[in-house]
Structure formats: structure tokens, C-alpha cells
């Protein structure tokens, strides 16, 4: 079952010396379970910041984020880490694999951190499913970009999170590899809510809903299909 995300008036300011820079302001949003949402907008519009706030990677300056009834913006650091580990999977544009771990070790990490060794044991099977059964013991530096992103998807899925967040997941890939990654990502909608930040209009078009940001605010919401 996918996660239910509620965003209530969140904003994020940064300090640049004495100056205050508001990158996100007054964003209200509700994302339904198993929905696929694309967040689009020009550079600097606050897309990645919004995604980081949804994942609990960053703290908002104001407002709150609730996932499946848990207001994650009110959790302390440890509880937030735990919540993130159990409920949220994250896929980065630059893959963010740990280069000293093999592919299978990278995938196992989130489950092992939770002490869920049964799930950790499924890492190899998960890599098989994304077509990397022959690359289990390869290090990230021995993989292509598309392969690394598939490892990242497997890692994000290992604990079967209710929310999958992806930041430009195909941004560093060629079109063929990108297509394969998107397939794998969107397959996860059966078990998770998927939120993708993208510049790519073709990806946005495949989402249930597109949320366009501009200057840190929601400029437009385009419903593509009913969730």
C-alpha cells in the first residue's frame, strides 16, 4: 500500500550571510497512496528542496509534512532517520551509491540498518529482477550509469517503502537506459507512492499528476489521469 502524503504550508529559507533566501514558500499539497506525481519547474524553482522536505532530508522553515498520519517535520533526528529508513526510498540523479560497497551490499544497507536481515537477504533477487543478477559483486565504478541507477532503485525498494522519491532519475542517463529505469520506477506504484522531480516533459506526461513549481510556489497542477 502506497503512502499518503500531506504537505501543509511548508516553506524553506536559506541564509546567505545577512540576506534571507526563500526557495520554497506556502506549498500545500496532498499526494494519494499509489499515485505517481511529477514535480516540474525551471531550475531554482524549489523542486529538489520540496523533494528533500518530503523525504525528511531537510527541515522546513515553516509548515509541516505528514506521511501516513506521521508528521515527520515534528520527529527528532533519530526518529526521522528511522522513519526514512522504513517508509521512504530515495533515488538520486547522481545515483549516490557507496563506492566501497558492491552492488548487492549497497542494496542490503537500508534493510541491515533496520535490522531486517530477512529482507536484506532478498537483495540479490531484487538485483536479478532489475536485470543485474550478473553484476552482484561489482563495485559502482565497474557499472554503467544505467546499471548504477538500477542498483539505486533496488536499494530504494529493498524495505518496500510506502513512498518512493526520485530526483531527476534519468538526468545522467542515455535515453535507452533512462527508459529502462523509468519502467522499473513506475512498476513500484503497486506498492508505493512515487514522486519524481524532473525536467523531462515526457516523464511528467506519464505521471498521474504534474505539479509545476515556479519561484518556490505551486504555479500549476495538471491532472493527467485519476488516481
Amino acid at each position: 500500500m502506497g503512502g499518503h502524503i500531506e504537505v501543509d504550508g511548508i516553506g524553506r529559507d536559506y541564509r546567505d550571510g545577512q540576506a534571507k533566501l526563500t526557495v520554497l514558500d506556502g506549498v500545500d499539497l496532498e499526494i494519494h497512496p499509489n499515485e505517481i506525481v511529477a514535480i516540474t519547474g525551471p531550475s531554482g524553482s524549489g523542486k529538489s528542496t520540496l523533494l528533500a522536505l518530503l523525504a525528511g532530508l531537510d527541515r522546513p522553515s515553516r509548515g509541516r509534512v505528514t506521511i501516513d498520519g506521521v508528521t515527520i517535520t515534528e520527529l527528532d533526528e533519530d526518529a526521522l532517520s528511522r522513519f526514512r529508513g522504513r517508509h521512504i526510498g530515495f533515488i538520486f540523479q547522481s545515483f549516490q551509491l557507496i563506492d566501497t560497497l558492491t552492488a548487492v551490499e549497497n542494496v542490503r544497507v537500508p534493510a541491515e540498518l533496520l535490522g531486517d536481515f530477512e529482507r536484506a537477504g532478498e537483495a540479490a533477487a531484487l538485483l536479478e529482477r532489475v536485470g543485474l543478477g550478473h553484476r552482484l559483486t561489482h563495485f559502482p565504478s565497474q557499472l554503467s550509469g544505467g546499471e548504477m541507477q538500477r542498483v539505486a532503485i533496488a536499494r530504494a525498494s529493498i524495505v518496500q517503502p510506502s513512498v518512493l522519491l526520485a530526483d531527476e532519475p534519468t538526468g545522467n542517463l542515455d535515453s535507452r537506459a533512462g527508459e529502462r529505469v523509468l519502467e522499473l520506477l513506475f512498476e513500484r506504484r503497486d506498492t508505493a507512492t512515487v514522486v519524481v522531480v524532473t525536467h523531462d516533459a515526457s516523464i511528467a506526461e506519464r505521471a498521474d499528476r504534474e505539479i509545476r513549481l515556479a519561484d518556490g510556489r505551486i504555479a500549476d497542477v495538471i491532472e493527467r489521469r485519476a488516481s
Partner: protein
Amino acid sequence: MRATTAIALAVAETRRARGALAFCIGSVAVGVFGMTAVGAVTESLDAGLDEETKAVFGADLEISSNQPLTTSTVARTFTQDLVAKGARSAELARFYSMLTPNAGEGTQLVRVHGVGDGFPFFGEIPTEPPGAYATLTATPSVVIDEVTARSLGLEVGDRAQLGKLDVVVVGQLVDKAGTPAAEFSLAPPIYVHHRFLEATGLLARGSRMRYRRMFALPDGLDGETLKAEHFDAAIAEHVTIRTSREAASRVRRFVDRLGAFLTIMGLITLLLGALGIGSAMNAFVRGKLDHAAILRCVGARPRDVFVVYFVLAMIVAGVGCSIGVVCGSLLPAMFSGLAESIGGAYLPTHVTLAPSTSAAIRAAFAGLLATAVFTLQPMWRIANVKPMTVLRRDTEGLGALGWRRRITSFVGFAVAFGFVLLLSAAQTASLTLAAWFTGAIAASVVLLAVVAWLLVRLSKVLARHVPSYAVRQGIANLHRPGNQTQSVVVAVGVGFLLLASILIIQASMRASIAIDQQKDLPNVFIVDIQPDQEAEIRAALTALDAADENFAPMISARLRAVDGVPVDKSKVERDARQRTFEDRMTTREYFVTYRETTAANEEVVDGTFWIGRPERQEVSLDERLAGAIGADIGATLTLDVQGLPLDATVTSLRRIRWQALTPNALVVLSPGDIENAPKMFVASARLPSADARFELQRRLATRFPNLSVVDITAAAETVVGLLEQISIVFTALGFLAVVTGAIILGGAIAAGRARREREAMLLKVLGASRAALRRVLVAEYASLAVFGVGAGWVLAELVNRIALPALFEVPAVVPYGSLVPIAVATVTLETLVGALIGRSVFAKAPLDVLRGP
């Protein structure tokens, strides 16, 4: 998080970082190696003393006095008590005299041991030919040692004069260690039977006689208990009771102090190692921030990240400790013969250098603990990395910012210095020493950091005017964020500071002891001059063109009371090994002197020294003695001058410069009634040549055999020999510290290699040649080394130029002849290490590096 996960992640982090981690391991290994080896050496010295002290003592118990024991009630009672309980006893006497061969030239100051039947009760006194010692009772004969045999050309069967007694040399001592002949003395020992002492004629006039009675106790009788029963009565009669455990107490105190200093040196190498791993880990974790951030993103809590990297640090420390412990334990075993070369030859017992399990465990534990403390800060920082770092590289990855970081740095330093204090207190068993040590380390680190900071800042300004691009860029690299410049310069600086200080202290001490090169110091000392001998000795000195003659009357006296309050001897430490300066000052017999003015080798620090012959009896005290007995200006001191009380008012306190080698005394009285007390004279003089000193010894030994004529040049050579042997260990540890500095530099470079590679490749893309890149790197490493060595040198000169005159009244002598080549070698070594570690920069293709992970 499960332990297995933490270990697996930590082990994974060692992949591709083994070069950098090798330096962390090396840092810890060198530190633990130093500490293990030092611990093994000090424990070997202690073990040698523990095992053989009974054999050195030759008995279970001793009662001794400066007066014949027959005159002491406690000695009689004690002896009767022990003999009634079945103890065996033997009479001994010890004094100094001159030995002159009947044929041939020369004379030699010797320490005469008059030994009674039965002694030694334990062990033996081995001689060549064997058994010669046992024949001493038969005829007037002596057993001499190798030094006397060599200097006087005496062989077995030759005859010599000991006072008025004609003696035959029946044997020569062999392997004195572990026998009663081994006690350290500036004069070599000779043995004669006790029953011939009277015939030497020396007992009547010698004032420096020690009368001893030795006991062997039957089973079931405990020497400590017997001593405790008679201790108070004995101390009241100025009689000393010692058990075999207290044998060689001076040597033991010396060994204890030597051990403490060695331990401190070992600690310094350990702390340098800890600083090394702290610095290398700091650089290492900076390169691992992205990993930590990823872990945070996938659900790791800050404490999980902390545990992973802490486990990593402990794995590294564990490997380093193991290597250090193995090498540190192997060293003493491999170089067991080294004991003789590091002062063991001067010890009364055999020393076998052997590995020490307890020292190894202590060092390993200290190594792990030091690593934990010194890597705490980088661990804390990486644990608090923000997960957001994975999305935004420009996010401040390190958790604390601004004042919070300053506070954590401060707390980190406080914890580190607290640890140093605790560790040094545990190692040296002295909180005072530990506090001084910690303070000195803290001050050195702070001063080095300041000097390093100034040098680096200065270089930034100066580099702008350097025409060479490579040098400019190399120096600019020192200011690169996360470059560990400060800690590397401090580490290299501490190493060089230590080595330079050892060499400066060594050179200064050697210069202060080199009597022959100091034209204003006397080179002959004559002790035990009786009043009727004074004129003739003055004449002999004049005939030999002696200069700076200085005669001082000496009267033996004891302290009886201060301001009418009898000296409290009840608190005197019973164990001679543990006695403090205060204990010794309240129980010892002083040689007091009298004169009308101050002497050249002293300075009045409080009150006024009399001039001439004041009406009332005045006394001037050594300032440290005054402190120990609690006598201030105006206090009334009651002395026991050979049984008669003498009251004197303290009117001045003096600081004596003993290094001037002219006679002086802790207690100086104004002239008056004291002049009538039985006395002897001590004289010092400077004779123009070794031949003149030899001639003086020859003349006086024949004419006045009771005298001790000490050629200070020869005595100084013995001290210099001992100091030089001991300094081998200190110098070796100093070099170890310099090597640690090089390892730390290598570690910092290896840890920051990835960033360096990217920079170098950028320069390459922009057109820099490999040669130019090499010059940039060499300039950077050479600058680091020069700044470290420079800072260490500046501080070493500064500290020693202030401390040596203040603490030891010795002017600092900087041995530039040896320091300059060592500094050049250190800079070269560190530059080479840097260039070697950094060479991978040239091996990579620009695209490999710039494309990134």
C-alpha cells in the same frame, strides 16, 4: 544497528583507502611501539633490581652509623636481640682512601670495604683467580677492581700501600653486577679484611667512615618487622637500619626517575601517534562525508554513522596496536645486549632486556584509548553530517557550524588533554608530574600552533613575491580547506621540538660537565683534610702552581630543633627508597661550615648575610633546606654539633650554584664558638695539567693516606659516560617522534589524495606539465616540512634557553653542527614521503579523475 552491520560497513570503508589507513595504522603503531619498548626497558631495569638486590646487599638486614656501633645503645640492643634469635652477623666498614702501588707510579682514590668473616651471606664476590676473596682473612691483602688495576698497573701478586698497611693484591673483581661490589660510586671499590683496618691507621683520622653490621636472619624472622620495632630508637641515635629491599636505594631512585622520563618520552610518541591518527582520520572522514550522507538518507541515525566510523577507527587502531606491540616487544628481545649500552653497565644488578606483557597490554590499551579520544571529534562531525549533502554539495556537510563547532572543538581538546593527564598520571604514578607534563604538552601544542599559524600566514604574504609559479601554488595549497596544514605542522613540529630539545639538553649538560674546557672551574677536590695537614697541603698546591684554591672547614652536625620545637622524626618514611627530600633533610647529618662572608658560588635570596664576626650566632641556610625544615628568616635553629647543642638565628637564605664545584654547605654558620669544634677541611683548586693533578695525588697519598683526592675531570668523565649512554635511548625516541611526524604528513596527504588529484588534473587540463605539477607538490610538502621543523626549532631554542638556566643553572648550548643536518634530513625525508605518496597524481588520466565517482 547490529554490530555485524557496523563492522561490515566499517570494513567496507577500508576498501580503496588502505593507503590512507596504512598511515593511520603506522601512526598508532609507532606510538604503541615506543611505549611498549620503553615499558619493557623500564620493567627490565626494575626486574633486575628486584631480583638481585639481596645479592647486592649481601645480607638481610644492616645497621649502620658514622660512629662505631659499639658506642650506640640501640646497636648493642639490636645486635643482642638478633643474635639471641639466631641471626648471624658480620662487621663491615666503608670509607674512602688512596691506594698507592709500591712499585710504579700513580695513586687512586678507592672506596675501601673492610669486610668481616661470613660476608656476604648471600651471593658471592667473584674474582680472578677464583676464591681470592675468601683468602682476605689470611694476610693483609686486597681484592681490587678492573679500573684500579688498569690505572695503577697492578696485577695479582703486586704490593700496594693502603694507609700505613702494606697489602698484596690477591685478586681482581669480575662481573660486579649482582654483587655487593656493584654499588655505584665515583671511586672504584677494593676489599680488605675488617681485622686489618686498624693497621691501616685510617680509622683514627678518617672522618667519613661508615660502620656497618650485617645480619643474616634465620627462617621465620622478618627483617621488616625487626626494623619497625627498633626504627624510632635507631633514628633518635642517628643509626640507620636498612633491609635488603632498600639496597641501592639511590640507584633505585635514579632508575625510577629515569623510568619516569622514559615513560614520558614513550607517552609523547604515543600522543604523536594519536595526533597522527586524529589528523589522518579528520582528513579521511572529510572524504567520506558523501558516504555518511548516503547512509543517513537510507535510514542511518547519527549514532549509527558514529558507530560505523568509530568501529573503523578501532579496527585501524587495533591493527596499529598489534603491530606496535609486536615490534615493541621484539625490540628488547632482539637487542638484549643493548642494556649495557644504555646505562646498564652502571647499575648494580644484571639487566636483561626482555619483552613485558604488562607493558604491552598497557601500551595497547593506551593506544586504543588515545585513538578513541583523538578521533572523537572527526567521528562526531561525520555522525552529524546532514543527509541533504547528497542533494546539495554546497550544503555544509559537517554538522556543527560557527560557535557550535568552536564549542565542540574546545570540548574535544579538553577531553584530549584530560585524557593525557589521566594517562600520564597512570603511567608515571605522580599527579604532579602528570600535571606538569600535560601542561607542557598543551603549551607546546598551543605555541607550535601559533608559530605554525604565523609561518603559514607569513608565507602567504611572501609567496606573492616569489617569481616561481610552482612555489606560489605549492604554498597556496597550504591554505586549501581541509588540508590539515595546522595539524601536520604541529605534528612535525612536536617531533622536531622533542629531538632538538634532547640534543640541546645533551650538549648543554656535556658542556657544563666538561671541566677541562671551563677555565674557571676547579679540577681537584681534596676531602678529609685534618687541621694539622692544612698548611702542608696549601704548600703542595702552591708548589704545583694551583689556582683558585678554596679551603672550607667542615663540621658534622645534625638538626635538633627549629624555634625550640624538636625535629619530628616520627613521620620520616621508613623505607629508604621512598624517602623525600624533606625526610632526608630532617634525618641526615650535615657538613656545616663557617665563614665571614658569602662565597662566590652562591646568591643570597632572602635576608642579609653577616659580614665578619657578628656577636650573636647566625646561620644562613640553603633556601630549599629552609623550606624543607620550615625555618624562615628570624627562626632559631638548634644544631647538634657532635653531641653539643648550638643555637643560631637564621639571618639569610642562599641559592647555591653547586655547578661551580667549589666547597659550600647547606648550613653556613657565622664564626665563633663553632671554630673550636672538631673539623676537617675540604679544598678545591685548579691545577694546570693532568700531570700536576697526578703529582698532587701521588704526593698526598704517600704523605697523608687518609685524604681523598678526587680528580674531578676523571669523575666527570664517568658521569658524562653514563649520561651519554642514557641519552642514546632518548635520542632514539626523539628520532621516533620525527618519523611519526613524517607518517602523519604522509597520512594527511594520502587522505586528501582524491581532492588533490582533481586539482592537479584541472591544472593539467589547463596546460600544466607533469614537471610543473611535480614542482607544485614538492614545493607544498617542502613548505609543510620547513614550517614544522622551523616551528619546532624556534620553540626548542626558546624553551631551552629559558628553562635550562632557570631550572639547572646551565646555559643552553645549541649544537647547530648536528641540528642543521638533522633539520635538513627531516625536511628531505618529509618532502620525499610527500612526493612518494602524492605521485599517483601523475599516473591518472585527467578524464578518470574529473569525471568523478
